[in-house]
């Protein structure tokens, strides 16, 4: 039932939460470990790729730059060569005597320089002297006036003239190159240069698979490209980024940082350029990025594969690691959850050989201990429940017995009182009164016994343990029962002993009284022997009788309240004696043993410690009762809410010569005292008053008005433990109803004699049955 109750709630709610938490922990660790492993891997990979890429680009740019510079130099050389040749031709003009000679020179020039399609010699005045062409017949001494043309004037003025690039028949790129002589009369040599020859230079430049070199003129027009058709189509490249940049940049810049741009085909290329110095042309070397990056891609792929493999490995190992880490934790978690839900027989199984395993084992230890204590507890609860049931039963039985035992003398009392109402003789009346007395004292005895039990149960008795000679008790008990024993024809023998025992004298006397009373009561023949026996350091106080004996199966029961052996019912007695003995022995820590044989008798043995004998002081002589009655004329305040009790008490007190002030409450008492103009000498207050006030409060109240030293007693009909304890704690002497008039008188006398002393305050509880 317990398991079910505890387990049903959390158990049904737990699986979802646990699994999500497990997932969290697993994910957390997995992510952490994967991150730890893969971040450096990725960073390293990225750095490697980046540096490879940079290195590769740098080397590509350097290579392309070298190629561009080389090709540029070659083209510049090509142009310079023509320039020089023309210079020579101009010089030769002066040296040669005939035009025929000059013509030969010119044809030689054409043979040597295939790029020159046509050569023209102009004299100092600007007249054409000679024109030699590859395609047409030579023209000698045409005298055409070229003196106003730029190729003549510029060449004369600046020695060299580079004409703009033009396209013959709209397709072939040409340039006019003219060279003037040192002297004006040397004239000018003009060459029409077919720039398709630069193709030889640019087409020789191999940049990877599909890299290209090409040349643009100062206007950005294409004049040399491996794809001759592009050149022939007179392509304008001035809008390309790299061309714009090259044309705007300083032509002397030797090293080009390279530029990623579009080429003429619209592909992304890495372009590096070199300026061709004398012409303001630009040579570009371009490599498509697709191709340029092939090694980078390859290395990227390789790095990527390694990275991927690394990551995969990292993930797998992280997975395994995390599983190994998290699994025992899960085991612990689910185990704890199950144990927490009440499954105490669950055991956690972890065999990782580390702290987690130790933790699991500790968990298991804890659980098994918990399981054990749980079982013990259950057993105890069962036992206690059984005990409680038994106690309840006993209480019921107790009540039934008590009421029965009270009814008997009450019944007898009623009969006796009825007898008194009849007109009877004085002798007979004396007999009846004696019987009433006996019935009252039987009731009194029963109430005292009940009170003793109650006090013992309430734990209000504090034993006062001292060393004393046992003989002192023996004397008194012997005196008590001598008559009764003699009446029944029994021998009552107390073996004289000079032993000293360590106990509470009064309580031990009660024990002995009860044991002897019992023995005398239940023994019909033979006798009772009381004696001390030494048992090592201990002493054994033994009471033996020759009664009917107690059967084995009832030995424990005889110590219960109102327990009487069935065979002995009607023998008198209340069945409380042994219960009191048992409780007292418990209180004093004395062991009590019972040995009995049916038909032979019983022996009760109380084991108690020895005490060192002291010199016995004689009891202080009993104070001789003063002849002067101390009660006479004293003001006694009685507070009780019961009118009958007030009247009875008032009558009794007045009979004793006291001035009795009877009140229902403390306030009423004060009012009455003021009316009389008297101070109280002693207070007697009922414990339980109206409006749930207590006698303690009343006493406090009156003492507050008339001084702290005012003697007071509490009278109570309660046998419940709580009021007993409260009264004891308040320090006031507690009398129990019914109060024997003699006892009340004795107490009042003592209190009034000691005057304002606090002697009336009882330092400890006492037993009602004390005599």
């Amino acid at each position, binding site marked *: 039932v317990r398991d079910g109750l505890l387990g049903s709630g959390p158990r049904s709610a737990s699986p979802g939460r646990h699994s999500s938490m497990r997932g969290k922990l697993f994910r957390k660790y997995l992510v952490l470990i994967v991150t730890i492993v893969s971040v450096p891997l990725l960073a390293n990979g990225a750095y490697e790729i980046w540096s490879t890429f940079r290195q590769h680009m740098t080397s590509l740019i350097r290579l392309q730059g070298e190629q561009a510079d080389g090709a540029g130099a070659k083209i510049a050389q090509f142009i310079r060569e023509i320039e020089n040749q023309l210079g020579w031709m101009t010089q030769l003009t002066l040296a040669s005597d005939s035009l025929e000679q000059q013509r*030969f020179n010119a*044809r*030689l020039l*054409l*043979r040597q320089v*295939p*790029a020159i399609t046509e050569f023209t010699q102009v004299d100092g005045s600007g007249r054409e002297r000679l024109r030699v*062409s*590859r*395609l*047409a*017949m*030579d023209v000698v001494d045409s005298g055409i006036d070229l003196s106003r043309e730029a190729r003549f004037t510029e060449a004369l003025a600046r020695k060299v003239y580079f004409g703009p690039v033009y396209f013959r*028949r*709209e*397709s*072939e790129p040409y340039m006019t190159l003219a060279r003037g002589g040192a002297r004006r009369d040397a004239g000018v040599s003009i060459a029409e240069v*077919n720039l*398709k*020859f630069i193709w030889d230079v640019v087409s020789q430049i191999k940049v990877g*698979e*599909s890299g290209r070199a090409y040349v643009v003129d100062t206007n950005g027009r294409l004049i040399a490209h*491996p*794809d*001759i*058709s*592009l050149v*022939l*189509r*007179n*392509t*304008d*490249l001035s*809008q*390309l980024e790299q061309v714009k940049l090259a044309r705007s940049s300083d032509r002397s810049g030797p090293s080009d940082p390279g530029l990623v741009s579009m080429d*003429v*085909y*619209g*592909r992304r290329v890495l372009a590096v350029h070199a300026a061709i110095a004398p012409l303001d042309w630009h040579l570009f070397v371009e490599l498509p990025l697709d191709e340029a990056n092939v090694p980078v891609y390859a290395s990227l792929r390789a790095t990527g594969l390694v990275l991927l493999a690394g990551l995969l490995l990292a993930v797998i190992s992280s997975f395994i690691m995390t599983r190994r880490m998290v699994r025992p934790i899960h085991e612990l978690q689910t185990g704890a959850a199950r144990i927490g839900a009440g499954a105490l027989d669950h055991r956690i199984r972890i065999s990782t050989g580390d702290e987690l395993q130790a933790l699991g084992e500790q968990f298991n230890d804890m659980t098994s201990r918990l399981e054990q204590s749980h079982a013990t507890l259950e057993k105890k609860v069962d036992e206690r429940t059984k005990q409680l049931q038994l106690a309840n039963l006993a209480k019921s039985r107790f009540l039934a017995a008590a009421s029965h035992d009270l009814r008997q003398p009450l019944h007898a009392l009623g009969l006796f009182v009825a007898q008194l109402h009849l007109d009877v003789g004085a002798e007979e009346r004396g007999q009846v009164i004696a019987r009433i007395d006996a019935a009252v004292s039987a009731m009194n005895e029963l109430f005292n016994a009940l009170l003793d039990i109650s006090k013992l149960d309430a734990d209000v008795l504090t034993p006062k343990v001292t060393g004393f000679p046992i003989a002192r008790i023996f004397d008194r008990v012997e005196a008590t029962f001598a008559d009764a024993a003699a009446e029944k024809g029994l021998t009552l023998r107390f073996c004289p002993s000079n032993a000293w025992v360590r106990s509470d004298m009064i309580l031990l006397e009660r024990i002995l009284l009860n044991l002897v009373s019992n023995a005398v009561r239940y023994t019909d023949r033979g006798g009772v022997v009381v004696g001390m026996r030494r048992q090592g350091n201990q002493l054994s106080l033994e009471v033996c009788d020759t009664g009917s004996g107690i059967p084995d199966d009832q030995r424990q029961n005889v110590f219960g309240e109102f327990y009487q052996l069935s065979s002995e019912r009607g023998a008198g007695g209340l069945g409380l004696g042994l219960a009191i003995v048992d409780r007292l022995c418990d209180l004093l820590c004395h062991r009590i043993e019972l040995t009995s044989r049916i038909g032979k008798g019983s022996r009760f043995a109380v084991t108690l410690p020895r005490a060192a004998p002291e010199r016995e002081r004689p009891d202080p002589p009993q104070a001789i009762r003063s002849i002067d009655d101390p009660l006479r004329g004293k003001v006694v305040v009685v507070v009780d809410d019961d009118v009958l009790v007030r009247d009875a008490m008032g009558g009794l007190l007045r009979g004793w010569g006291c001035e009795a002030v009877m009140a229902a409450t403390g306030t009423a008492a004060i009012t009455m005292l003021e009316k009389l103009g008297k101070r109280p000498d002693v207070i007697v207050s009922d414990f339980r008053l109206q409006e749930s006030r207590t006698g303690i409060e009343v006493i406090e109240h009156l003492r507050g008005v008339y001084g702290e030293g005012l003697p007071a007693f509490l009278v109570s009909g309660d046998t419940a433990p709580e009021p007993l304890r409260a009264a004891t704690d308040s320090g006031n002497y507690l009398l129990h109803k019914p109060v024997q008039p003699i006892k009340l008188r004795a107490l009042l006398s003592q209190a009034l004699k000691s005057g304002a002393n606090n002697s009336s305050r009882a330092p400890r509880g006492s037993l009602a049955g004390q005599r």
Partner: protein
Amino acid sequence: MTAKEPRSRNRAWPGRRSVVSGLASAVLLSGTARAQREARPVVGFLHSASPETANRNLEAFRDALAQAGYREDKNVTILYRWAESRYDRLNDLVAELVDRRVSVLVAMGASDGPRAAKRATTSIPIVFGIGGDPIDAGLVANLNPQSGNVTGSTFFSTPLGPKRLEILRELLGGIRSAELMINPDNVNAKAELSRMSAAARELGLDFSSLNAISVADYDAALGTAAREKIGAIVVMTDALFNNTTEQLVAAAARHAVPTMYFLREFVTAGGLISYGASIINMYRQVGDYVGRILSGARPADLPVVQPTKFELAINISTVKTLGLAVPSSLLALADEVIE
């Protein structure tokens, strides 16, 4: 500004297309040959002459085509049509190729071929290879056409006639007359003759023409020239002559007529002298253009290519055989002197 990227010239590896079709052919090894043929582009190759002498030039064409990624019988089919110098057959041959829906029509040799092709189609790309001026021949409006379906290359031989005459006169010193050997079937013949006549006049030479329509005419024509003491002969740029190099050179030798040719191949075959550009380069150029068109280039984006190198070749042994002496000034200018 953007242009189609050409296929790499020095590609050692076949293009993607060839790989794909190679794969396809491997898969369909015994499969339908038709599907295979359809997947493969077909080039129609028209030549005004016959295959024999064109072989070396064809090699250059095929090389260039292969470099552009197209290998004959691997991933391109070439349908050859030879007019055997009978120019009247050209139209039929062109029609045949157009009917076959070729991807590119190549027209080599006399400009009649490309002209017939141009007449036959405006959709099939035409790549010509001729010796004359393509503008004069009416093939293109200019060398950088930018529209139309025709492009090609010329070894720019026809316009060099006057130059050849000039050089020949220098070689032979004091000749007074010269003759142009023409193929009257060539549409350029008349124009060439008039241009040469003008040049001859300028040089102060008597000038006339010799006709040769076939190899059979060579001996008659050259014999006549020899008998008439014609000092020199310039051979007109024509596929017939180019196609029959050996026969023409042999005939010239038999009749001991100093002859100026338009290709160095004549000189290596024993001809006296030549001035002109390389025809092999032209074939190579045509092959390159065909490859580029097969790869998706438009003919309009491909300008007509002219040669840049013009070479003077002289055969010294022929000079000696003819009992001539080469002036040192000319010898010094020769790009190639063949012993």
